[in-house]
């Protein structure tokens, strides 16, 4: 009898864990939905999803506002402004504004809206933020050199079978795997 009660108690606990685990949608369903969003982007606009391009447009606009005399001379800004006369009137800028809204809606529905620094209990918030900053700097630089990030180059590139998309995916994920050992303390 006691064993049986124990079983029920444990099972009940397991069920509660199950509920907690299913707070995110099934990853394969998430993948299909993301793929459908990607197809809509190609159908409507003839292009895939992206992220880092919006940061470039914003950066160029800010530098142009702060130092207009300088950007009239610098090569990169001149080239960029020739092809993008209005940098903020850009597909990726509108799309990324949408990402902020979409993420907020999903987080609100699931009850995940909270200001916090997420990190492994083994490291401090300060260490997490320092590594987040360094990671961001590297990713920002790499995305410009590589002409797109995980979304624009790897995911969208692979969907249209671009050789560059596959190379980008292999380089990003391969390097992260290869370096995982050295940064394990931050995550496990």
């Amino acid at each position: 009898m006691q064993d049986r009660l124990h079983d029920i108690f444990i099972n009940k606990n397991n069920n509660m864990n199950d509920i907690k685990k299913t707070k995110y949608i099934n990853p394969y369903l998430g993948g299909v939905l993301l793929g459908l969003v990607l197809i809509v982007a190609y159908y409507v606009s003839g292009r895939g999803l992206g992220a880092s391009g919006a940061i470039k447009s914003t950066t160029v606009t800010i530098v142009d506002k702060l130092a207009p005399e300088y950007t009239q001379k610098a090569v990169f800004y001149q080239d960029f402004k020739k092809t993008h006369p209005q940098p903020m009137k850009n597909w990726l800028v509108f799309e990324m504004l949408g990402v902020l809204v979409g993420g907020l809606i999903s987080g609100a529905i699931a009850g995940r809206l909270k200001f916090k620094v997420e990190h492994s209990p083994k490291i401090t918030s300060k260490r997490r933020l320092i590594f987040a900053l360094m990671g961001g700097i590297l990713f920002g630089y790499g995305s410009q050199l590589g002409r797109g990030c995980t979304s624009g180059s790897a995911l969208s590139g692979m969907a249209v079978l671009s050789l560059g998309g596959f190379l980008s995916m292999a380089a990003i994920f391969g390097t992260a795997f290869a370096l995982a050992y050295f940064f394990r303390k931050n995550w496990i």
Partner: protein
Amino acid sequence: MGPLIVNDIISQNTNFLLAFLIGVGFGFVLEASGFSSSRKLAGVFYGYDTVVLKVFFTAAITGMLGLLFMSLFGWIDLNFIYVNPTYVTSTLVGGVIMGAGFIMGGFCPGTSFCAASIGKIDAMVFIGGLFIGVLIFTEGYPFWETMFNANYLGSPKLNEIFGWSQGFLTFIIILVALAMFWVGEWAEKKFPQEEY
């Protein structure tokens, strides 16, 4: 027939409005799949959570198949969609730098915006880093301009390199993805997963 903007079926302003709505869908799916958590994202590199692998490759094969079928049905003209150009050197060097940024920062640009939207402060700091990184690139552009444009191959598709049809390559990639999903499921059982 799609793409709508190329065939002048919608105006440029409508295109921007739809870009915003596509972004809403993008952000919603990323957040709902758990991409707003850096610990969940980094899990793929240690095997304790392979959500990145599952979502990323399911999305890629859904996209590939969807475009092929839509082309077959005459709904979209694949000649008018953007195919990423291939610059071998800058793609590989940029990819390696991004990979290092990924394992250190725990986000990529899209996921960091998604995480920042629900209040993750580490994501906001990562985004600050992104702006600095982009600024370093634009400011120092003359230094890496040669590397940026080296080994340009045009916009080849992977199937053309093997001499395969697009459908056959897609079929092979689906098989590879299924094998990786199996490895992912195995890894999640092998490595303990915490709740976060």
